[in-house]
């Protein structure tokens, strides 16, 4: 019998941080058969990346393997000499990291970097270059000759990740370790890269250790899954079994946190997992999940639970696994009703009108139209979701609305009946305070030298017009209402977890009772369980105060959950705009359709992916006609190709309240999309 390609046996890894050994992996055991794809999923800080590095015996300098063994095809890597491990890494194991651009050397041409890998495996210089070209073809790079002469910064993220994959496969590895290989990529590019990985795996039979925080991606990519929590695998099994019959309370909780298709803020509240994962190296007795588990009993804390088989090759580390399915919800499933609204503002009445908003930046003497004639409306207490690939102009639109960047002439933004000036210093203090923002990255959005109380009280003082002493009291109240514990009010942002930082940022944004809050990817840096609590908090605040949101996110599930209206952006233009239900139920604009079909959903249903080929064109040189036409999958055979390539379509009202920028008639779209 052939030994598994990779086997970790009771692996314990510690990191020495400021002189103290902190345990990161607490006895991880897993095995990956030849040709199998094994997924490791879990929240940040649970040891996923450490496990990936350990699989190559490539730990940071302060990390060490305290106990256990790493068997590669039956040989214990922990007993090998460094040169032996190095030779395994060149010939048998490859790794693909999250950020492809940092994995490539920026000063060396792609061809040379790729050829070097072949030369390391014993090929001559000429052979290596030929093989490098073939390798690029294998990862579907259309013009390998041209790409080989380029430098990494010439490539888009998706292209660079293809090159990295080509490089990793150059040695025909028996094991491929992929650590969040698509996390930084747009959904459409992610879908393409994942398709490629699946195809290559089918052709080469390489075993894969696939690490991701994204359950949907894992669901689509892996044969078996291990759920990692606090450095320990709490549940492991075949992908379909594990997703259909999750048996560990952590897995159950994780799956419940995700805003899946169909859930909406008006009818459903997201469930959460109470608490946070234990700190790095914390002393844990018994079950690692005990502190956050609703089923916890004394027995759980007494000793580490044994692995129990709950199905064919499906094991779980939980004493009470049989009742996991009935895990009580951490929070009420009922949403705050609209009746609780304590504000006089009438929901749905007009708040913000954006008319013909445009912005051109000057770059190297050329004018680049980043935002092109965008018109939309936000009603009181409503959420407008902005979606689109990176570079679509989402964040620029947010900055234009807030006045952080001045808009072009002939653009109009009307807030509550008052026309606003383009830049902040020309707007009144009230108008500036009426619109606030919650940023994506709270580390940069909160001043790390100020205490939590100071951050919020300053905002209360300036935006709420309170005196210094009153503002501190008000800030404390506000923070407590955001459920930031009083013991943390004197802390600096660095001392808080990601979710808490985002709560502080939300408290600051709401300090002056704003009419509109822009949420720019507020949860994309957070784990799913924390994301759920933040989304619940935002929804509660909206219902209570009647605040309107402009919600920017690349996660369509999140946008669908929280939005009343959606604007789909492509190259600085609105291509589809309408009620959330209209946009999601269709008929869709071909671009929206492609976006929707690229999301790997966690229910495992196979959906036909509508490809969005090629790269996003540069706004400095947009395509003629409809800007989508070079990538559009519905143009061919539509009968209106001549229009698509020559004339830019207008944003037409195709149904009441549903706008689309497409030449193809709605009925024709409906027909092809329901086929």
């Amino acid at each position, binding site marked *: 019998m052939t030994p598994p390609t990779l086997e970790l046996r009771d692996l314990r890894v510690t990191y020495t941080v*400021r002189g103290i050994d902190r345990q990161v992996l607490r006895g991880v055991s897993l095995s990956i058969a030849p040709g199998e794809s094994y997924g490791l999923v879990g929240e940040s800080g649970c040891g996923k990346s450490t496990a990936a590095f350990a699989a190559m015996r490539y730990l940071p300098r302060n990390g060490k393997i305290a106990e256990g063994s790493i068997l590669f095809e039956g040989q214990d890597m922990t007993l090998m000499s460094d040169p032996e491990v190095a030779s395994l890494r060149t010939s048998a194991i490859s790794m693909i990291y999250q950020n492809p651009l940092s994995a490539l050397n920026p000063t060396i041409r792609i061809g040379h970097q790729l050829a070097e890998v072949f030369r390391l495996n014993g090929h001559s210089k000429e052979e290596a270059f030929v093989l490098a070209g073939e390798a690029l073809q294998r990862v579907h790079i259309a013009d390998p000759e041209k790409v080989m002469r380029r430098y990494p910064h010439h490539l888009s993220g998706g292209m660079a990740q293809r090159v990295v994959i080509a490089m990793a496969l150059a040695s025909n590895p028996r094991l491929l370790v992929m650590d969040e290989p698509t996390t930084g990529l747009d959904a459409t590019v992610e879908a393409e890269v994942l398709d490629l990985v699946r195809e290559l795996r089918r052709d080469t039979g390489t075993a894969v250790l696939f690490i991701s925080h994204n359950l949907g991606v894992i669901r689509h990519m892996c044969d078996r899954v291990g759920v990692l929590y606090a450095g320990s695998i709490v549940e492991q099994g075949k992908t379909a079994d594990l997703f259909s019959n999750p048996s560990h309370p952590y897995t159950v909780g994780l799956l419940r946190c995700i805003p899946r298709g169909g859930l909406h803020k008006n009818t459903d509240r997201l469930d*959460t997992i*109470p*608490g*946070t994962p234990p*700190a790095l190296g914390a002393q844990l007795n018994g079950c690692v999940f005990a502190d956050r588990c609703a089923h916890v009993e004394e027995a759980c804390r007494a000793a580490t639970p044994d692995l129990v088989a709950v199905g064919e090759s499906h094991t779980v580390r939980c004493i009470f696994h049989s009742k996991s399915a009935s895990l009580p919800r*951490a929070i009420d499933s009922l949403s705050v009703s609209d009746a609780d609204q304590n504000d006089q503002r009438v929901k749905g009445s007009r708040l913000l009108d954006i008319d013909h908003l445009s912005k051109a930046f000057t770059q190297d003497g050329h004018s680049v139209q980043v935002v092109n004639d965008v018109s939309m409306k936000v009603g009181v207490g409503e959420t407008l979701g902005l979606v689109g690939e990176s570079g679509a102009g989402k964040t620029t639109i947010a900055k234009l609305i*807030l006045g*952080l960047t001045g808009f072009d002439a002939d653009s109009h933004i009307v807030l509550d009946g008052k026309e606003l000036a383009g830049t*902040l210093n020309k707007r009144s*203090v009230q108008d*500036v*305070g009426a*619109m*606030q*923002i919650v*940023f994506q*990255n709270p580390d*940069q*959005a*909160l*001043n*790390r*030298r*100020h205490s939590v109380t100071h951050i919020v009280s*300053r*905002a209360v003082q*300036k*935006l709420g017009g309170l005196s210094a002493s009153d503002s501190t009291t008000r800030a404390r109240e506000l923070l407590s209402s955001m*459920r*930031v*514990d009083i*013991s*943390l009010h*004197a*802390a*600096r942002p*660095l*001392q*808080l*977890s990601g*979710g*808490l930082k985002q*709560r502080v940022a939300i408290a*600051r944004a709401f300090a*002056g009772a704003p009419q509109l809050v822009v949420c720019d990817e507020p949860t994309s840096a957070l784990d799913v*369980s*924390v994301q759920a*609590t933040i989304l619940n908090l935002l929804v509660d605040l909206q219902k209570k105060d009647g605040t309107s949101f402009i919600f920017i996110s690349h996660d369509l599930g999140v946008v669908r959950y929280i939005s009343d209206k959606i604007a789909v952006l492509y190259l600085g233009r609105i291509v589809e705009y309408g009620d959330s239900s209209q946009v999601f139920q269709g008929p869709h604009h071909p671009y929206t359709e492609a976006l929707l079909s690229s999301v790997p959903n966690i229910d495992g249903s196979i959906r036909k992916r509508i490809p969005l080929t090629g790269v996003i064109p540069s706004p400095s040189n947009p395509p003629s006609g409809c800007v989508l036409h070079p990538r559009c999958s519905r143009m061919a055979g539509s009968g209106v190709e001549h229009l698509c390539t020559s004339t830019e379509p207008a944003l037409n009202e195709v149904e009441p309240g549903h706008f689309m920028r497409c030449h193809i008639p709605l009925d024709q779209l409906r027909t092809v999309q329901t086929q």
Partner: protein
Amino acid sequence: MNDSTQSTPKGTVAQERIAVLRKNKAFVVGSSILIFWIICAIFGKLIARYEIDQMDFEATYAAPSGKYWFGTDGLGQDIYSRVIIGSRLIILIAFSATALGTAVGASIGLIAGYLKGTFDMILMRILEAISAIPVIIVALLAIAAVGGSSTIITILIIGFIFAPNVARTIRAAVLAEAEYEYVAAAKLRSEKTSHILFKEILPNVMPTLIVEFTVRLGYAIFAVATLSFLGAGVEAGSPDWGTQVADTWSLIFSNTYWPTLFPAIAIASLAVSINLISDGLLEVFEL
């Protein structure tokens, strides 16, 4: 329940930094030496064994002995006492000059880095021109122009020459800092520019500023010692290390090394201590 159940004790980062500093040998040695000299500068009179101008004509150029630990100079003055008391002037001048240069430089750097644009460009070109001027030559010329050495003039000149370097370092840090979104958040509450500069951005470039201060302090000590060695910088007759070295260095060849050696060691130890401190700080602030 929510994610606030986990808390980190207050002040952990600062405490850990101090703990790391205390383990850092370079920093401990450097700060011990500096503290010694600061004590000498403040309480010199109590540590010295003789008045600095007390002359013993029975014992000129006396070798180190139980009576005169570091020997005496040509006027029979106790070198030990003059070295101890001499710390006052160099530390005073070097610290004041560096403080002045850092304060002026940091303000310029903050404004230039935040406002950017044409103002920044013109300002930085002027500063580059200034920093191309050699410190010692300008100082000598200025002192000659004013007509006589003076502590104040020395402080002003060294401060003036240092400001551009500090400004450039701080400007670079501010350029990065101003891109952070907490600055946008401050603009969205209509904060004044001065508040954004000094209350929001300055605290975040403080580590850079502190390290820059110590680095400049090391240079300042050299500059002061050099100037007084060249006969400028301090009023004549002051018990200054550089002056002492200048007055006696030629005697080394006739084996009367002590009037030169001890002030020279003093200069070296002070300069080295400052450099050790800045090395330690660099490590802790992870710059």
